């Protein structure tokens, strides 16, 4: 069965491991990969009047930077590895956005990495990986 796999990617070593892991499986199954990068953003944060004015311009800059320095290189690097690759960059809360991407792209699985460190804050607030394990709409593989 071929399917579409969503991989959460932020350029870290952990997210690369998740991508490597996913791409092997996708290639074996004849599936495809959606690499998703999320820019953390809350519509309820507070901005100064100046930041309001420049927000649209900053957003365009942030998207362009994420595309050119993060997503384009990774798509190019992984394109020859036997699976079709698309990429997407979105704003929002990482967990929510990854779940939305999985639903919207009719993905069959999701892959994320984890750095293996259990810091105090992740014990208290939970990590992206553990939150996804709780609420992902599709089977979610957490790659150590």
């Amino acid at each position, binding site marked *: 069965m071929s399917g579409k796999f969503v991989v959460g990617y932020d350029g870290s070593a952990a997210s690369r491991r998740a991508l490597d892991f996913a791409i092997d499986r996708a290639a074996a199954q004849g599936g495809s990969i959606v690499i998703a990068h999320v*820019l953390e*953003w809350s*519509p*309820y*944060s*507070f*901005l*100064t*009047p*100046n930041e*309001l*004015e*420049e*927000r*649209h*311009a*900053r*957003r*365009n800059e*942030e*998207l362009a930077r994420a595309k050119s320095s993060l997503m384009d290189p990774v798509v190019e690097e992984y394109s020859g590895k036997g699976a079709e690759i698309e990429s997407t960059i*979105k*704003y*929002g809360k990482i967990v929510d956005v990854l779940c*939305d991407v999985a639903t919207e792209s009719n993905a069959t699985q999701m892959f994320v990495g984890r750095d293996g460190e259990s810091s105090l804050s992740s014990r208290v607030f939970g990590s992206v990986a553990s939150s996804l394990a709780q609420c992902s709409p599709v089977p979610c593989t957490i790659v150590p």
Partner: protein
Amino acid sequence: MFHKIACATGVAAATSLLSAPAFAQSLDEKVNQVFASSTGWFVSLIFSPFPGTSFPWIVAWLVVAATIFTLYFGFIQFRAFRHSISLVKGDYSDPNDAGEVSHFQALATALSGTVGLGNIAGVAVAVGIGGPGATFWMILAGLMGMASKFTECTLGVKYRNEYEDGTVSGGPMYYLTKGFAERGAPGGRILAIMFSVFCILGALGGGNMFQANQAHAQITNVVGDYPGWITGVIFAGVVFAVIVGGLKSIAKVTEKVVPIMGVLYVVTALIIILMNYDKIGWAFGQIFDGAFTGLGVAGGMVGALIQGFKRAAFSNEAGVGSAAIAHSAVRTKEPITEGFVSLLEPFIDTVVICTMTALVIIITGQLISDAETGMYMLNEAGSAIATVDGNSGVALTSAAFSSAFGWFKYILAIAVILFAFSTMISWSYYGLKAWTYLFGEGKTTELVFKIIFCIFVIIGAAASLGPVIDFSDAAIFAMAVVNIIGLYVLMPIVKRELNSYMSRLQSGEIKKFH
């Protein structure tokens, strides 16, 4: 006891800071004198009463406008209230626009410009002069003002300038020019220029000097008296670091702490009101009786009404046009949605926060009344109601809150400083927008305005309350004169937008995303 020690050390510190206190005091007086004599004519022009009455024409101007907008848009502030809240919650925001300015952010930024000393000091001035009855008129003006805000913010978004680099500039200067041209009405450009001039004065007055002045009053209230120019120089330095030096960290901290302070203020007020729950009925009785009889305040019922309307307008700035500048950066395909969101601003600012301040002052018994007649007693000058410790302005609010919680004056001092600071930052931006509209954009012209702005911080802190508060009011109300003329001419455009949006909302063409 602790308080006495703190005061004594504060005074000692302040005195030792100055090698020549006499010189400093006389500098304060000089600044005050020059200031009062050079701005007096402007103040009297704006606040001149209708012939044969004591009713200033400007107050009528604002209230009549708010009433006309309320009727013209069919009580939009009540009809659209729920829809406004769902817009702020983001129910109608396209997820693909995430990362752009949300309705919530535009509202929060505009609120941090308006929620400030008007809510703390301004209300105390209103209740101190106009009695509890002023509260009634203040709430009424707040409710009506929601329609003015709705009109101006819709226009602000509709006629904003969007530049190639993605930045936006909006506000009355732009809708006056572009909107008038679209309607074929003459004089748009002249009105826009006049608005910009008044906006610069308003930014220097209410958005700056009044804030510095009351922040200083609150600090001296805690640490003891010392010359105002010292506070002024410190404030000016910090403002300079932010607006000229681009020190974003200070602004960022303020933007985060101010909402927390706002919530803390309202919660404390609620606790004090609940602690005196047996007096709530009496307090509202005072508010209603005072509204129609004056209960012995200077000027009677009209005195209460003028004070209530004046301070409401000064606090929520509805009809003034300043909010249209802040709201215009939102990302929306429908300008009218920002109008809906902005109408919550006078509600939060005036109907909720100002009313809390007024209730706390009334309930804690700061205003002295004659036990036999129930009428309020006037102070020696006969200009305001006598208060327990002879306080007025921010000191009166502070005394009211401290009577319940002794420590609250320290919290209030911090809140006042932060509110003053965030209002100054907002108004420096409004003033700058008006300045660049007049003189063109460019690093040097912008720097000139920013330096002038900082100098006025010092003047504001050094001048005494009377002349500063008068000039602040006058400059801000002058903006409303021009802006409201524009709103009358352009309101059919808003109506068209409203009708089109409402029909699409009902037909389901505009749908919720969440």
